[in-house]
């Protein structure tokens, strides 16, 4: 029997190294999968076929890293057209990308790069998001990123910027708690302050991953298990997000399916525990 009750919906990323396992349609503790959109845009073979099979058994989110919403030169219509086709095929419950730029129009840098938090960027993002949503005929959710530099032209904090962006675009949010933790550490702010100031009612998905500490800084490499500092933050916000889909994210050093599944189970336990804590508090 699956551990997860309907209230605690913890999923994880869909990784090519797990295709063979998932093709056997095993019973898993995973409530849903997040698929990296770009991997499937040009595929007609195994990747897309596995995605379609997984979709028959699980809800699916499409999480992109290549829309390049922060590109001052605008968006690729070809990318949006292919994503639209993919959305029609797999009917995801959320389509998301990042508050970031990922290259210029003719050179993909395959990284989530930080944007200045100012009026010009808000206008670029709003224009690009408007185009994306009209082409995709789907609402977009936006995820926060980790950053290792900041800009002199910032004239608001990251949480003010994210709040203003949701206000202007009507977009929902995907909350990456590991990126919040990373930025709080590197840019010296309190992660709880960040969470207090973003519009939590717009959050539709929460991601957990593994930043690593090197020297005095945190790097959101998503290459390790979810570390204690992120679990601690997750426990603190659990009562506020336990109704939301939660994802265990991993981008590098993809382990066995069962290893990631352990983090899925752990997240489900924490969510259930957060309910118990709150109920006992009410009784007192």
């Amino acid at each position, binding site marked *: 029997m699956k551990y997860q009750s309907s209230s605690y919906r913890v999923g994880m990323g869909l990784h090519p190294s797990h295709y063979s396992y998932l093709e056997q349609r095993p019973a898993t503790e995973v409530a849903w999968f997040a698929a990296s959109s770009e991997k499937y845009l040009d*595929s007609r*073979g195994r990747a897309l076929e596995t995605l379609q099979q997984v979709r028959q058994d699980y809800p699916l989110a499409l999480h992109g890293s290549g829309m390049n919403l922060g590109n001052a030169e605008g968006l690729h219509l070809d990318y949006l057209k292919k994503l639209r086709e993919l959305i029609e095929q797999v009917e995801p419950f959320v389509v998301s990308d990042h508050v970031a730029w990922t290259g210029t129009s003719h050179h*993909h840098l395959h990284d989530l790069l930080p944007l200045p938090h100012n009026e010009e960027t808000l206008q670029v993002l709003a224009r690009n998001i408007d185009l994306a949503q009209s082409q995709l005929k789907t609402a977009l959710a936006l995820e926060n990123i980790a950053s290792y530099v900041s800009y002199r032209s910032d004239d608001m904090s990251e949480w003010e910027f994210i709040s203003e962006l949701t206000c202007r675009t009507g977009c929902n949010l995907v909350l990456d708690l590991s990126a919040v933790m990373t930025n709080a550490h590197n840019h010296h702010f309190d992660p709880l302050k960040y969470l207090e100031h973003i519009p939590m009612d717009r959050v539709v998905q929460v991601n957990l991953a593994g930043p690593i500490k090197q020297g005095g800084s945190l790097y959101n490499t998503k290459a390790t298990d979810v570390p204690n500092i992120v679990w601690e933050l997750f426990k603190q916000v659990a009562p506020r997000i336990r109704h939301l889909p939660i994802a265990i994210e991993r981008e590098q050093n993809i382990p066995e399916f069962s290893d990631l599944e352990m983090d899925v189970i752990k997240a489900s336990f924490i969510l259930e525990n957060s309910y118990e804590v709150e109920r006992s508090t009410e009784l007192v």
Partner: protein
Amino acid sequence: MKLSEVQNLFKKQILAPQADPQTITDLKPAGHLPLNEAFEVYHQGYTNRLTEALSRTYETVLWVLGHDLFNDICARYIESQPSVAFNLDDYGSTFPEYLVNTSKTKGIPFLQDLASFERLYKEIDEAATPNPLPIEQVQEILHARNFKIRFIDAMGVFQSMYSVSELWKRRKEPPYMYEDVNWGNPESLLIYKKDKRVMVQNIDPVDAEVILELQEGKSASEALSGYADLMTPERSQALFQLLMKAGVIDDVTL
């Protein structure tokens, strides 16, 4: 500074980490992390991601060269070839040609062919699972005097002066000297998808030529005419049986 200018400078800095990030006057360090260290993170991330993408596609080339030499060659290739595809996994379509032109490969003769083979394998793996014409229907038509064959998308013929498939079969083994593998014989391969699996089958070089001509759209009698002395009626039948059993025939027209 306009956002587009900032982004172009930022990009240059990621690609050339030896440049001075102070030139991007709009940037400041995050906390204690100096700008040059931050850019080293972005530069390394870029190089590592593309190198990993190349190592997934060109797994046997990596096996032959070893990590140090492979990474070194990738770093130079990445410097010379910007990534233009959304999907990281599509990076490196020109890597086989690059391998010929770099002196770094120390004259390993089969490297370009091996890389081209791995690229073709990837393309076939990414093609849709085929739905070939049922054997009974093919058989009926193959008895006709002349016909044209349309092949499934997930099929390719690969010809080389070297036994690249011998090297490829060993790619999962622990690294040892590639000289120990018998790679010196020419080979012709039929690579195709059967159900969801990619098959690699050694075929006769003349059969390979005929298949390539059929693939170009020539009729069976046109394709066979250039090899009349070699392709007896029995051998021709055997070739069509092979194609039929492999399940690579999408359609046959009279």
